[in-house]
């Protein structure tokens, strides 16, 4: 038994002291139920004395009743509840389980199920120190073995156990073991896993207990460690501790006017008072004064610790900044190449504005068309226009401001990141949808794109205000959204005429006209619609910058893209007008005969028919065309412009 009952009984204090200095190891198990994964985890829990007598009695009874092991203990039953959960319709993704031995505490990320596998495995692997990949000795290296191994390599797990299970069913054959090992090593080389610190092959039987906790007499030809011994002794973490200092600032700690500290967790290297540091992205330098904790000031803090640092100078430091080693700071950039893992049922839309959260910083993010996606089963690079749930691709990404970062140390990214040790915490990010606030993906930064270093915004002295002063009005955008045939263009034309007679400088951007020129390369798929609107928002923004009142007449069916356009303008410059016509009426009008074509199947992705229209929740102007005449509608728009003092 792993917990020494005698020591507990004789000297509880000594026992607790020994327990106190245990280290913690987090690992992930990869494999399916068929590989004996539940049996293996069940046995590890059992062997570490986490199964009590009453549970054991229940296990014996269950094993006899429903077990698959002919009366022997069926350890998989210890992890029951999964099938029940499935029946209840509860999503099974990542479950965390806990056990400890005399030497270490363990947290196991268990990711059952085949569906959602990539999302779940990437999530579990992101915090794991070690991966245990199960292979059924009878079946050898399978497609799923390759998939699991690739993800382990991509996420940068540097210690891998290849557990060749069910050795009892192949008569503990060394030849079988060696041939699986040779095949695996060849494959490991292709995915960078050969650069791992350890790859340990262990022949075992989770069911019979061979080489799980103790070395087995059935595999006399194997002189390596049993699984538990490997897990108890493998060294992890060293590369992070020796890396340069990185501490993302989570919270500026100001209990009173005399104290200003920066609270965060050290995610790389170590720090001492007197160390020179550089604060990114600003690039200011300072010196560490104190490392403050409730247990007293520290002489040194290391990777993993949560502390509060004070500096000798009054420099400007905010949440999201990274305090770096003065002589080895992170890079700063706003455009990158990255691996993106998509984790949501709604596909990724290139060009759509998302949020990136990296460390303690959240910034605006747009993703280009994928350069390619990776088939996680074959590792082939395939052409892709988007990424769907559980797909992984390589994309260029752009942020709305520069961030400090390190390359992500994924082994599968070896060549891309050469020359930098990288850092998981300053190179890994999640992607958040701006409307639902859900986490929809994750990414690994490779490197900054060169162009991002070279682009500097020109310092323009003649600015928007200066241009606006030459006009008798302020600039702004009237954004008309609605179904095809709702009357947007009719109303927009009347508004422009009225403004023109008032001496207002205007320009009308109309969907059809723009699609013949600027956007003629775009079709009507969701991602093209996003790009369509992005360009119009940019053009409108430039025209607003030039001092004009811009009238935009576009179906613009997606809320997120209209929000993108709004975000592009300053406060009070954007007026969203919903030209609201019921679908039946728009279809009756059908001025261009498009609804008829869509209904007959000659035209696909038509808004309202086979492509959705997301109506504005609270538009600035709401025009219900079945009760308002175009002339009156135009006056409503003019009134809205007056209310915002764009015109007088």
């Amino acid at each position, binding site marked *: 038994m792993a917990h020494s009952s005698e020591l507990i009984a004789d000297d509880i204090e000594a026992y607790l002291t020994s327990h106190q200095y245990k*280290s913690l190891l987090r690992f992930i198990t990869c494999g399916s139920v068929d590989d004996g994964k539940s049996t293996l985890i069940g046995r590890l829990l059992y062997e570490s004395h986490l199964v*009590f007598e009453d549970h054991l009695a229940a296990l014996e009874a269950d094993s006899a009743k429903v077990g698959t092991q002919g009366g022997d203990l069926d350890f998989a039953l210890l992890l029951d509840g999964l099938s029940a959960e499935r029946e209840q319709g509860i999503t099974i993704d990542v479950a965390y389980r806990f056990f400890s031995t005399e030497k270490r505490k363990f947290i196991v990320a268990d990711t059952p199920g085949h569906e959602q596998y990539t999302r779940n495995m990437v999530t579990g692997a992101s915090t794991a120190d070690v991966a245990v990949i199960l292979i059924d000795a009878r079946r050898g290296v399978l497609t799923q073995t390759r998939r699991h191994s690739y993800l382990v390599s991509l996420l940068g797990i540097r210690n891998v156990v290849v557990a060749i299970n069910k050795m009892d069913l192949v008569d503990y054959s060394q030849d079988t073991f060696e041939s699986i090992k040779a095949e695996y090593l060849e494959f490991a080389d292709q995915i960078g896993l050969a650069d791992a610190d350890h790859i340990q092959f262990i022949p075992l039987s989770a069911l019979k207990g061979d080489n799980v906790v103790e070395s087995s007499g059935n595999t006399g030809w194997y002189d390596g460690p049993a699984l538990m011994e490997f897990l108890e002794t493998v060294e992890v973490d060293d590369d992070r501790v020796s890396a340069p200092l990185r501490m993302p600032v989570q919270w500026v700690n100001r209990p009173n006017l005399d104290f200003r500290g920066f609270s*965060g967790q050290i995610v790389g290297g170590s720090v001492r008072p007197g160390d020179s540091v550089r604060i990114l992205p600003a690039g200011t330098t300072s010196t560490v004064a104190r490392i403050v904790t409730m247990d007293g000031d520290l002489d040194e803090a290391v990777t993993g610790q949560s502390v509060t640092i004070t500096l000798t100078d009054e420099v400007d430091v905010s949440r999201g900044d990274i305090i770096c080693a003065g002589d080895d700071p992170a890079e700063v950039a706003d455009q990158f190449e990255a691996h993106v893992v998509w984790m949501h049922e709604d596909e990724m839309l290139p060009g759509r504005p998302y949020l990136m959260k990296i460390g*303690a910083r959240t910034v605006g993010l747009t993703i280009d068309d994928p350069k390619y996606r990776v088939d996680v089963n074959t590792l082939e690079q395939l052409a892709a226009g988007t990424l769907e749930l559980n797909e992984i691709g390589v994309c260029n990404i752009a942020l709305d401001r520069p961030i400090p970062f390190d390359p992500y140390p994924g082994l599968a990214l070896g060549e891309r990141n050469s020359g930098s040790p990288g850092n998981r915490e300053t190179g890994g990010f999640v992607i*958040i949808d701006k409307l639902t*606030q859900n986490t929809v993906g994750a990414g690994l930064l490779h490197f900054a794109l060169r162009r991002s270093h070279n682009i500097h915004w020109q310092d323009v002295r003649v600015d928007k205000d200066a241009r606006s002063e030459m006009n008798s009005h302020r600039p702004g955008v009237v954004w008309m959204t609605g179904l095809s045939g709702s009357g947007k263009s009719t109303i927009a034309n009347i508004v422009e005429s009225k403004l023109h007679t008032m001496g207002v400088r205007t320009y009308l951007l109309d969907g059809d006209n723009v699609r013949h020129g600027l956007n003629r390369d775009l079709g009507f798929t969701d991602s093209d619609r996003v790009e369509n609107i992005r360009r119009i928002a940019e053009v409108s923004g430039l025209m607003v910058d030039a001092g004009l009142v811009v009238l935009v007449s576009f179906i613009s069916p997606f809320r997120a893209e209209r929000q993108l356009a709004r975000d592009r303008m300053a406060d009070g410059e954007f007026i969203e007008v919903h030209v609201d016509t019921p679908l039946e009426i728009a279809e009756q009008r059908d001025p261009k005969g498009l609804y008829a074509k869509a209904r007959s199947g000659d035209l696909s992705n038509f808004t309202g028919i086979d492509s959705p229209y997301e109506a504005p929740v609270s538009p600035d102007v709401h025009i219900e065309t079945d009760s308002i005449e175009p002339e009156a509608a135009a006056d409503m728009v003019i009134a809205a412009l007056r209310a915002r003092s764009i015109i007088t």
Partner: protein
Amino acid sequence: MPTGARLTHLQRLEAEAMQIMREAVSESDRPAMLYSIGKDSSVMLHLARKAFFPSIPPFPLVHVDTTWKFSQMYQFRDDTAREIGMDLIVHQNPECIEQGINPFDHGSAIHTDMWKTQGLKQAIDMNKFDLCFGGARRDEEKSRAKERIFSVRSPQHQWDPKRQRPELWNVYNGRRSPGETLRVFPISNWTELDVWQYVHLEQIPIVPLYLSAPRPVVERDGTWIMVDDDRFQLREGEVPETKSVRFRTLGCYPLSGAIESDATSLLDVVQEMLLATTSERQGRLIDTDSSASMEKKKQEGYF
């Protein structure tokens, strides 16, 4: 704690909890800590003080009260809040007060639902909290093993297990749509032994009811129930007797079973717990049996 190149498991868990709390506070407008006065709450509160030191944790403690806790718990709660200097918000469901809801006349299910589940929703709505810390652990029961550290609740306070957000590295998404709230569990990855070990190491004050002492009890359904005040409805023939007992979990006193024990110090308690082969776990069989109902409760908005 001593520092070295490699952190111990408790140091890693402590640092993780502090990082989670700082992240949660930074991404919310009105955070609060749900404080149940138990040992897990005590540990969570201690971690909060560490996370924000030298500042006082920048949120109030919220106790969703049932008026039926042990008197020693109320004493401990008020002393703790005063000593740390944090605001304490005590919420008692006014409907329950009006109707005199109690475990004797209404049974534990109605009592718990009305005072605790409904009371918690009221406390969050009335104070407009957008994020609440809770002391739940993943090792407690199966449905928690897969709950996120940052867990989204709908405007109706419901948990949707199908809509959980992936959590990678130490990056937590604390954003909410209008009306949504978050529950954040900083000690998700702690086990029961970790909690006791940490209480011991850090000398964290806990309610004395966890330690054995002579207490007036009656036997009901095979367990000892303490007669904590004169509201206790004795059944015919029941006479309180004095026994050396302690409590493994603390709640409403008429619903908390005590065990006979000689463990009068914290070390004794940990020793008893570690040596237990059946009894400690049997006490938890209720949890195991009701794992699905716990899931249901959570979907309804219970903690």
